[in-house]
């Protein structure tokens, strides 16, 4: 009975993962399909991967997407991390108000943030393009980084910082030598989140990109209407492969740490 239960539970977990991975798996499989349409599998080929590196337009879209994700992740992580620490440490006039503002991008529908940013860019006569895209991605990432870092700050952090100050460390030294190492898990997960949100985003990019910009979501959006070529499948597969490699490394690293903790 218990045995059967366990089987059913594992089956459920597996089914959820099949659901989550099915559409990507399909794209990976079709990236090796000889036929140009994603309907019937006619035979194995790797030509779409070589094709991909000839498709300058698609590659450019991909590179732009990466540039946006990296730039916005780095910027929002730096601003978000220092802000989380500052907001935790200091009191100032209007702090409550700023804290409330910071929740807004997390809770309101992305589309509202998207059109609001678009309106303001227009108001300021900013040309829509890479700059506004990066700015927008920074805008919706910062609150997530702050929330993530904030969750690793505690009374203990405060006390340890005081100990460092007491031993002669300046505010900057305290931040660099003590605070930063202590909140590292929060910073890493905040940065990961920012990067993920940026890579995944469609809605905000859609409104703040402008006609000339070429990013992956926009490219694919226009292709869906005309038909997606298999080199997009190849690109998806490569992206997925990269992610899986990075994640496997981090999972191994983390479980080692857990095991080490158990031993100690």
């Amino acid at each position, binding site marked *: 009975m218990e045995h059967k239960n366990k089987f059913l539970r594992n089956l459920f977990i597996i089914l959820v993962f099949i659901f989550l991975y099915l559409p990507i798996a399909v794209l990976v499989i079709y990236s090796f399909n000889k036929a140009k349409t994603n309907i019937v599998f006619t035979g194995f080929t790797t030509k779409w991967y070589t094709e991909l590196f000839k498709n300058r337009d698609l590659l450019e879209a991909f590179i732009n997407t990466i540039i946006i994700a990296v730039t916005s992740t780095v910027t929002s992580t730096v601003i978000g991390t220092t802000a989380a620490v500052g907001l935790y440490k200091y009191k100032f006039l209007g702090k409550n108000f700023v804290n409330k503002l910071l929740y807004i991008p997390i809770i309101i529908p992305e589309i509202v943030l998207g059109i609001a940013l678009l309106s303001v860019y227009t108001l300021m006569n900013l040309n829509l393009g890479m700059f506004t895209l990066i700015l927008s991605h920074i805008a919706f990432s910062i609150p997530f980084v702050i929330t993530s870092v904030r969750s690793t700050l505690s009374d*203990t952090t405060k006390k340890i910082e005081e100990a460092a100050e007491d*031993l002669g460390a300046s505010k900057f030294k305290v931040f660099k030598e003590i605070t930063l190492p202590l909140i590292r898990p929060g910073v890493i997960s905040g940065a990961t989140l920012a990067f993920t949100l940026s890579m995944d985003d469609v809605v905000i990019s859609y409104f703040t990109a402008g006609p000339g910009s070429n990013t992956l979501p926009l490219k694919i959006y226009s292709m869906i209407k005309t038909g997606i070529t298999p080199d997009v499948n190849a690109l998806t597969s490569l992206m997925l492969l990269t992610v899986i490699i990075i994640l496997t490394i981090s999972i191994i690293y983390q479980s080692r740490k857990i095991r080490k903790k158990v031993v*100690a």
Partner: protein
Amino acid sequence: MKRVLVELKNLSKKFGKEHVIKDLNLDIYEGEFLTLLGPSGCGKTTILRMISGLEKVTSGKVIIDGKDVTDIVPAKREVNTIFQNFALFPHMTVWDNIDFGLKMHKVPRTEADKRIKDAINLVKLKGFENRKPDELSGGQQQRVAIARGIVLNHKVLLLDESLASLDLKLKREMQIELKKIQKQLGITFIYVTHDQDEALTMSDRIAIINNGTVEQIDTPENIYRKPHTKFVADFIGEANILTGKITKVSENEAVVSLPDNMDLTIDNKNYQVGEEKTVVIRPECFDISSIESLDSFKGVVKEYIYDGMITKLIVQKDNTELRINLMDASSFKEGSDVYLKVPKKYIIVLGDKNE
């Protein structure tokens, strides 16, 4: 007279509307072990944090070694703190924890290494240099915190409830060891605690803090034997505190009449008949007997509590309950009649300040 090393002048601290420290004055001598003792919330930790600079002063002055440091940041003050729960740097080894302050003060490497080694030897942590704090026991963490605090050779070390998180046995060991370290180094320790045992064992002087002011500052013995206020008498040790009136005065003696017909003879110190007086009698100061004698008064044993080294009796005298501690109480039991006397040298009369 010893030299004053830390001087607190008219110190006040407000948190919003709450007046935590009220116009406090305190002189702390070079090389002494001074304990700030008081109930939680009395402001003792705030005083310590104002000395270290981690808390800003609302008004008044903090003077360390003749220098006004009131407006100086903690990093630049020549004091160090050992925090409650130690606040060790979890991402650094024992060695790096101790080294941190030396690095911040840019002490030359060879000199620094020597001082770290000395400190590690002093707190008996040899062999643990490369451990991280979470690989150490509570007592070992405590030792790292001490080493980290003393390695800078500052003249004052502040200890904030530093032993509170240790278990009882370890606490006792560390009390003795702390005292030893303090004597060996000859530096001033300012120790904050709410634990009177700790205060009585370790301190040269104890300052009893209540409601943001110093209630009394004295040697442990005087604090216990000659409390100045009801609060001090009650806070330190056990006490029977009774209020009555002077009913008789002669040249050398006086009689204070307490409620329930307890008349006690005390030394006359210019008392007037009719004056209200509060007396304190420690539970171990009673003469107790099952036989009536001159001047004794009768009570009934209401509770008999065996507590190892001593036995605690609660004796009912009409409406008053008296706490009495005895080394040997085998001749009494619950319900037995007892006759009590208090030798006058053991009667503490509050308000006598001429000693």
